[in-house]
């Protein structure tokens, strides 16, 4: 057991840290479009220096970074309060999915523009009627000569307005059972059959969109992993989502908790035993999340998959982050709920944590059935 970074991990961290220090782009500008452009520029900068996709194999332009190094990458970015690259879904989800399931031509065509940020990707899985029950999705794709024509509706598509490509899952066989008959496509967003409508969240922001597809055209060579194999391919994407994002989120929670602790200390509130107690409880949760995430990484590196602890980090994070934000707005007083504070909005945003990327209820089902081996709900 060695919870320090080994020599090569340390070297990786030091090199990265120096590079970020020298190249930090400053604070993200206000405004959604401005922020996006800023993060896209930042990705281009990372790309030029070879930092955009550290976890990708070197043959695709990555650094073949270990899981620990990839974690370090997220930690360092967050600690330096540097932005994350714009094309996060491309880097974490689309890229790895194409590496596993794509054809040589697809890899050749798509991977480099993902890394450079030249082509942004979004994800078209969720539908209004198929939330937790992804396999029941209804968007349908029918053959039209060499192409497929897709019609349907998607939701929770973040970054759609900036995207060139969409990882799309649609139903291609209506006679097959629910999980069969789905196909995974690469959809060109720049066409008439694709309409994007921003989906406003309770914060007032629109991180997400609805996607309306009407006979959107997809050439046959844009099928990933073969027709009818979409469920399996989508699972690859989802696995990457869970593994890749958890680490960044953990760091985000630590940064927020540090900030809160500093603010409460500055306000002289740490002498209040109730505040010290709740803050301690949150710190414990935050550390446990960090430690459990690292345990999962080690298990994955040594045994090819995380142990039971690997299924817990998303849940730990969403619960911990919600408690953190609720506590922050309580401990800092009602001013934290006004426009002059960022905490109120962060607290609102945190309500989505237990819903996005798999509701906590569905996560518990998965843990009960797959990790604990309890009988499946009937």
């Amino acid at each position, binding site marked *: 057991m060695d919870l320090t970074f080994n020599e090569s991990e340390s070297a990786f961290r030091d090199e990265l840290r120096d590079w970020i220090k020298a190249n930090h782009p400053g604070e993200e500008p206000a405004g959604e479009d401005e922020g996006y452009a800023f993060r896209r520029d930042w990705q281009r900068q990372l790309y030029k220096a070879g930092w955009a996709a550290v976890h990708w194999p070197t043959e695709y332009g990555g650094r073949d970074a270990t899981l620990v190094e990839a974690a370090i990458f997220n930690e360092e970015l967050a600690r330096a309060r540097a932005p994350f690259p714009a094309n996060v879904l491309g880097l974490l989800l689309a890229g790895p999915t194409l590496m596993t399931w794509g054809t040589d031509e697809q890899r050749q065509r798509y991977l480099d523009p993902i890394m450079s940020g030249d082509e942004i990707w979004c994800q078209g899985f969720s539908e209004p009627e198929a939330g937790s029950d992804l396999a029941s999705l209804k968007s349908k794709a029918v053959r039209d000569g060499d192409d497929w024509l897709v019609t349907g509706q998607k939701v929770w598509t973040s970054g759609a307005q900036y995207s060139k490509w969409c990882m799309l899952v649609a139903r291609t066989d209506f006679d097959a059972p629910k999980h069969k008959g789905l196909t995974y496509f690469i959809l060109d967003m720049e066409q008439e059959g694709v309409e994007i409508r921003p989906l406003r*969240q309770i914060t007032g922001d629109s991180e997400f969109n609805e996607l309306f597809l009407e006979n959107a055209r997809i050439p046959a060579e844009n099928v990933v992993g073969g027709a009818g194999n979409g469920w399996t391919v989508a699972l690859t994407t989802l696995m990457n989502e869970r593994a890749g994002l958890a680490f960044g989120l953990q760091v985000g929670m630590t940064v927020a908790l540090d900030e809160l602790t500093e603010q409460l200390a500055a306000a002289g509130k740490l002498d209040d035993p109730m505040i010290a107690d709740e803050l301690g409880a949150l710190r414990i949760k935050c550390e446990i999340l960090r430690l459990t995430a690292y345990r999962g990484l080690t298990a994955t590196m040594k045994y090819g998959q995380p142990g039971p602890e690997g299924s817990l980090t998303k849940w730990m994070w969403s619960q911990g982050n919600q408690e953190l934000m609720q506590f922050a707005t309580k401990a800092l007083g009602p001013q934290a709920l*006004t426009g002059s504070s960022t905490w109120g909005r962060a607290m609102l945003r945190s309500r989505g944590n237990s819903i996005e990327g798999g509701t906590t209820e569905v996560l518990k089902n998965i843990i009960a059935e797959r990790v604990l081996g309890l009988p499946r709900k009937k």
Partner: protein
Amino acid sequence: MNFDFTEDQHEIKRTARELLAKRSGPEQVREAAEGEAYDMSLFVELRKLGWTGIAIDEQYGGAGLGVVELMILCEELGYALAASPFLANALGGLMIEHAGSDDQRAKWLPGIASGEATATVAFASGGTAQVVPDADGAAVIVLIEGDEATLIARDDAQVEPLITIDPTRRYARVSASGGEPLPGDVASALARAEVALSAEMVGIAQRTQEMAIEYAKERKQFDTPIGAFQAISHRCAQMLFDTEGARSATYFGGWAADADESQLAFAAAIAKAAASEAALSVTASSIQVHGGIGFTWEADVHWFFKRAQLDATMLGGTGKQRARVTQLTAASLATAGAA
């Protein structure tokens, strides 16, 4: 022992429910929230109906009814999430009626009762109250600092309107020096205000509970209404648990305000604590039951969640109430032991 409303009180409740269903439906609440402005015609209607003066003595133009009747209205206004300065005005009115001098009552209560010159109240520190409901439109502001309360005419205060996460109500920061002290029993006036505020939160919890249950019956996942899954159905049962508990405590507070002052401090503390916790947990839980939809601006549940956040901080949080409950019971046990 009769823990139920009178027929007249039930009638007030029914009338309020029906009126507000028409006048403060989801569309109207949304319009007010998105416009960040009240539909003042609603408030005018409430004034004309005499709601603003319901608990104010007849000699000041009120209806002379009790905190119980006011509580019933506040619960229904919370249930409807009505966007109006009603609550702040009622809370300020309670302070002045129950802790003010005769002169102060005579000067301010008629305007509060008619709703033409409204009041508000908030906790302050060093002469500044950070987040005061409806202060900008008020005629008179009561600031409570420690055990003292001070009455300040709007024009003598610095009032700086604020954006908060709750756009269904207007808030402002208020600073003032001077003002007239309220000479009466500030604690017991404040306890009445806490009960009225608690009632709004009970209404909020009730409504979001109903929204969750309705959604859970209709929404299907895995070919089953989600309300058939215990993860959802037990969560809904928990909402009932929280809401009904808060209701029991709040009604006790209303009764104590009107009928047994000796229990009022205790009753108000448990009401405020229970109603705050219920409103916070039930609204958050309701968002969760609504899933992704609940996280969108288009669903209505977030307005309730946001109002609950501000309400829960008003007039002191749960921690303060719990400490007070322990103080009060320890004192009463010590007295009983000594007797």
